[in-house]
């Protein structure tokens, strides 16, 4: 097993709005090894983006990291000063965002924005940084980097902008790249290209990636490990194989039933998960999924389930794994609680 690069312990992040506290992330723990690709999947409002922003310490007021540790390469990022964390950003840890159309500053040339980042974290001269930027653009597949680096963002298409953003993000050889829904805003063909690019870059540089998405297909494409989030909590963790071939949590199972499969038979219908996600202003005391769960038990309404260890790589936060709960087909019993 590779060395642990990132370890998140009991992270809680809340937003103090004028209407009250919104508990976006309510105590999650996970780890990521060097060179690993972790997919975080969940629907909107599940807390996956907040998790990634918390790692980057990019939570803006009124948001606050309430509790927990984020240990990156032995350093607890939550304890760092603002100036110290800035040295990590774009350097050790990089991030790309959902909407490439708005993620580049419209009034500066691509060149300017890339060189700024490179010079921020290295001792390169402007000329060296420019050369590096052109190399990077070539690496991410911009056809004519020498000319196009002088363009303004509005002269780039969406896919090209995302490539430019990726190029900027990897410009200082980060050890962790967080990609928050990197393909959601793009056309399907471009999506595939970008995912391919990310995979290739990971292979080439050996960096770790956290890939955040609501799209199970994207996860399957790139990730090695998967976290399923819901209502600010982790529902299930496991390898891609675990989550896709042996899902244990009712929510993960629900997700599978709700997405189309390429080789489905005619009579196989998509089954949506009924209801809507919980209100994180007043989160339920029990399992956040209980109100939509087909197998909800009395205990689910009052207590959130701990993570039951299913295998060495997989765990699931559902009371159905408890030895005392009724036996339901498809849900393994587990004695070990993480």
């Amino acid at each position, binding site marked *: 097993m590779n060395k642990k690069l990132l370890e998140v312990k009991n992270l809680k992040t809340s937003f103090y709005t004028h209407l009250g506290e919104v508990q976006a992330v309510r105590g999650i723990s996970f780890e990521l090894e060097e060179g690993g690709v972790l997919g975080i999947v969940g629907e909107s409002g599940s807390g996956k983006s907040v998790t990634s922003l918390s790692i*980057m310490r*990019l939570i803006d*007021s009124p948001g606050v990291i309430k509790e927990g540790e984020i240990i990156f390469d032995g350093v607890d990022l939550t304890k760092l000063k*603002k*100036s110290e964390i*800035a*040295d*990590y*950003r*774009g*350097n050790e840890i*990089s*991030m790309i*965002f*959902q*909407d490439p159309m*708005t*993620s*580049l*500053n*419209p*009034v*500066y*040339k691509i060149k300017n924005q890339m060189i*700024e*980042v490179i010079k*921020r*974290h290295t001792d390169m001269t402007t000329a060296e940084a420019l050369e590096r930027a052109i190399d990077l653009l070539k690496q991410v597949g911009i056809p004519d980097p020498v000319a196009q680096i002088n363009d*303004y963002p*509005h002269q780039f298409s969406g896919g090209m902008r995302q490539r430019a*953003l990726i190029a*900027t*993000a990897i410009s200082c050889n980060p050890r962790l790249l967080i990609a928050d829904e990197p393909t959601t805003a793009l056309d399907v063909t471009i999506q595939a290209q970008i995912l391919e690019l990310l995979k290739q870059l990971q292979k080439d540089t050996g960096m770790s990636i956290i890939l955040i998405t609501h799209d199970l297909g994207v996860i399957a494409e790139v990730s090695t490990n998967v976290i399923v989030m819901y209502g600010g909590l982790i529902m299930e963790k496991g390898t891609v194989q675990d989550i896709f071939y042996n899902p244990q949590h009712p929510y993960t199972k629900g997700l599978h039933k709700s997405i189309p499969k390429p080789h489905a038979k005619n009579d196989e219908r998509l089954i949506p998960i009924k209801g809507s996600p919980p209100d994180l202003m007043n989160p339920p005391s029990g399992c956040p999924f209980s109100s939509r769960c087909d197998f909800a038990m009395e205990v689910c309404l009052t207590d959130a389930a701990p993570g039951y260890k299913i295998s060495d790589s997989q765990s699931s936060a559902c009371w159905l794994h408890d030895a005392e709960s009724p036996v339901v087909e498809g849900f393994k019993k587990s004695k070990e609680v993480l």
Partner: protein
Amino acid sequence: MGNYYIKRLISVFFTIILIATITFFLMRAIPGGPFTRERPVSPAILENLEKKYNLDDPLIIQYLNYMKGLATFDLGPSFKILGTTVNELIVEGFPTSAKIGGLAAILIVSVGVPIGIISALKQNSIIDYIVMFGATLGVTLPSFVLATGIIYIFAVKYELIPPTGLGSWKGYIGPVIALSGYSLSFVARLTRSSMLEVLRQDYVRTARANGISEFKVIAKHALKNALIPVITYVGPMIAAILTGSFVIEKVFDLPGMGTYFVDSVSNRDYTVIIGMTVFYAAFYVVMVFLVDVAYSLIDPRIKLDS
């Protein structure tokens, strides 16, 4: 790109000619003409007067003559102030107005923009509330209220500044503050909301995520974008305040363009009204044009949009 500016320039000229035409015919549409008010004049004198000012020509000839004059920057004589031309009035009044207006413009930009930024950065803090309260007051207070308030408090009550005139440097304080009050508040509000908007933008988050220092994020990435709407407002505003404020000049009794214009309106001095209106309009559209040029320099997206 060059095309764009040429097109805009042509429309500037077109607008000026149109304004001059409309104003000319509006003034000629007034029943009675320029000399029939106040004391009745004998027909013989009236005839001589009309001859003197070429008012006996057909209207279209008068119009063409006026336009010819306009082309050579000659706005004609005043009908009410004997021996004075409109040009002389403008030359006399404009420097005063421009001095006050220029100082006000500097004050507006150099104070309004920074406090807007500070207010945005310290959103929901006590500073923010104070600034926003003051700015809201500033945009709701009519300029004559502000001007008279300043005179009362600073000139009458505490005698810190002279109530009227520009005798010493202190004389400038009142008019400049009164003139900038509304726009300063507006610019502060605009900068604040624009800055808040920009700070929420994804590219600001990207810059932060790339480890760019907070100072650079604000001073480089956010500010340039945030200033775009501010420039849109400030350009025409500078045009408007450089040509003088009717109210401020009246209250502080300053011999500026605004005072001459208001006087000409109450004296029914029609050539002065036309001339000054054309001057105002021309100055204004030229300023707006210059702003557009500046705008396209700061925002690269503009050029392609045209």
